[in-house]
């Protein structure tokens, strides 16, 4: 009990005093996961929409693959990215192993199928005649796609939330490709793992609370956008 009370006290101290190290870690977490989510948003929404709107052989197989990808284990992604960017790996020349860039790549790989899978369902769930209705009002193909994406904005924002939630809380891949280097590639999750391992429960609890707050704030903002009322 003592441990927890102590931890919470310490946590508030760290948060209220804007401890520079903790702030740095928080900021990096937000930057890495935010960037990864943005990348996954572009790739996921465009491919998800394209798959939803076209008919081709093997469409079901592709959808199954995307759905499988939604549950991609972060450590497997971490392993794969590490191999690719290893000094002798195919992308070794980029020299990005143990950098925040590597973490962004790994997290984008984790978030993209999540965003893609939800976007696909979101677009597929629109009324089947809506496409024809929009085209018959004179839309070009790109105008039609844009209207459909706007129409599916609620589930698409849910996709963003799910993607961001997946990567901000992810630790396996970040620690493998980022290396948890102090002041450089240390993020909230990797720091929490390390502090817990060292027995510094107070710091670990503080980082945990910040992580929760961060996830809450981002989702709160997105929910505000999602649930914004239309004029009546």
């Amino acid at each position, binding site marked *: 009990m003592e441990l927890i009370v102590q931890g919470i006290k310490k946590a508030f101290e760290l948060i209220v005093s804007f401890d520079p190290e903790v702030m740095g870690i928080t900021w990096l977490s937000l930057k890495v996961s935010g960037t990864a989510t943005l990348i996954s948003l572009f790739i996921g929404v465009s491919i998800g929409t394209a798959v939803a709107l076209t008919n081709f052989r093997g469409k079901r197989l592709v959808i199954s693959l995307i759905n499988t990808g939604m549950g991609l284990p972060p450590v497997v992604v971490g392993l794969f990215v590490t191999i690719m960017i290893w000094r002798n790996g195919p992308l070794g020349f980029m020299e990005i192993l143990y950098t925040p860039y590597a973490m962004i790549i790994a997290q984008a790989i984790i978030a993209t199928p999540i965003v893609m899978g939800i976007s696909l369902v979101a677009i597929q769930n629109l009324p089947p005649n809506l496409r024809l209705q929009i*085209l018959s009002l004179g839309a070009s193909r790109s105008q039609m796609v844009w209207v459909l994406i706007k129409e599916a904005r609620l589930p698409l924002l849910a996709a963003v939330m799910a993607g961001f939630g997946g990567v901000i809380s992810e630790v396996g891949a970040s620690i493998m490709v980022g290396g948890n280097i102090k002041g450089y590639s240390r993020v909230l999750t990797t720091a929490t793992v390390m502090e817990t391992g060292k027995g510094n429960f107070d710091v670990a609890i503080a980082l945990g609370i910040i992580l929760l707050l961060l996830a809450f704030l981002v989702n709160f903002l997105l929910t505000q956008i999602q649930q914004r009322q*239309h004029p009546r």
Partner: protein
Amino acid sequence: MKSETLIKIENIIVQRGGATVLDISEFHVQSGSIMALIGPNGAGKSTLLLTLAGLLRPQRGQIYFQGQSVDTHAGRTILRRNAAVVFQEPLLLSSSVYDNIALGLKFRRLRHDDIRKNVQEALDYFGISSLAKRSAKTLSGGEAKRVSLARAFAIKPRLILLDEAFNSLDPPTRETLIEDLRHILEETKITAVLALHDREETLRLAQDVAVMSGGKIIQSGTTSQIFNQPDSEFVANFVGTETILEGTVKRSNAGLMEISVAGKNIEAVGDFLPGQNVYCCLRPENIIVSKKIPEKISARNVFEAKVQKIIRHGFFYKLMLDCGFTLVAYITMPSCEDLGICEGSTIAASFKATAVHVMRRE
């Protein structure tokens, strides 16, 4: 006055999943006319509408819009920009009513002022100005239908294609919408093709009719041709379940009219002025059949009738009666036997003045 052909299709074949869903050798719509497509579900009405809108590419055949082939990309774009489809479902976007109606105009990148002007005009046409700022998702079925119609009219199309526009609306809402649409089509002179399944809607809105079945057009012509001279049993059965008589109002007094039909007088409720040409519509279930002309009867219309034909119709017999005009009546099988009715026998047919539905005939 001979009007030009707005759209014409030739030798069209549309296949879906190996089955032919549309097979039309020739079909055209005159500029400014209102054409009804009628037929049972699955007859190919919606497919024909999509083909006419340029939204569905037939496997075979030619489409000409304003005399030009729609085979090229440019031709198809011209057709798509000039034709607007209104589907059965309103298919409104989750934004305001105003934004929904402005949609097609925004696609055309019109200037802001022009968009506002056109949207306001469309709102006024359909009497929904007060809804402009409402969210489209909060509308009632009838309101949503009006918005989706207004959205199509706002782009000022040359050709408007309506798929079962009045389905799933309650009768009063439907009634006023049909009347408004008739006025709007009359005023705007926009060519329209309407998929309908109701004979009364067809008579009220269209001048021309094409009867469809199994992906084919089996008869087309003016409404009067189709309803009065069906050239096949299918068409007769499809359009002939009710009696529709052409007549002229002779007298009209305090809501009761006397209408002259084929030299006989029919009393009906309504207040058209004398001299007005009308249709008298009678549903077969409202016709009472008896052996002799009854002495005391509340029905105002009693006629001696000769049984021309007896057709078995489920648990009923359908009687084609000749009272100087043709009347269709239903009778249950037991009462038919009780009355000893057979083809050629003379009976009495009566109906109330309130059972006659009177429609304006131009």
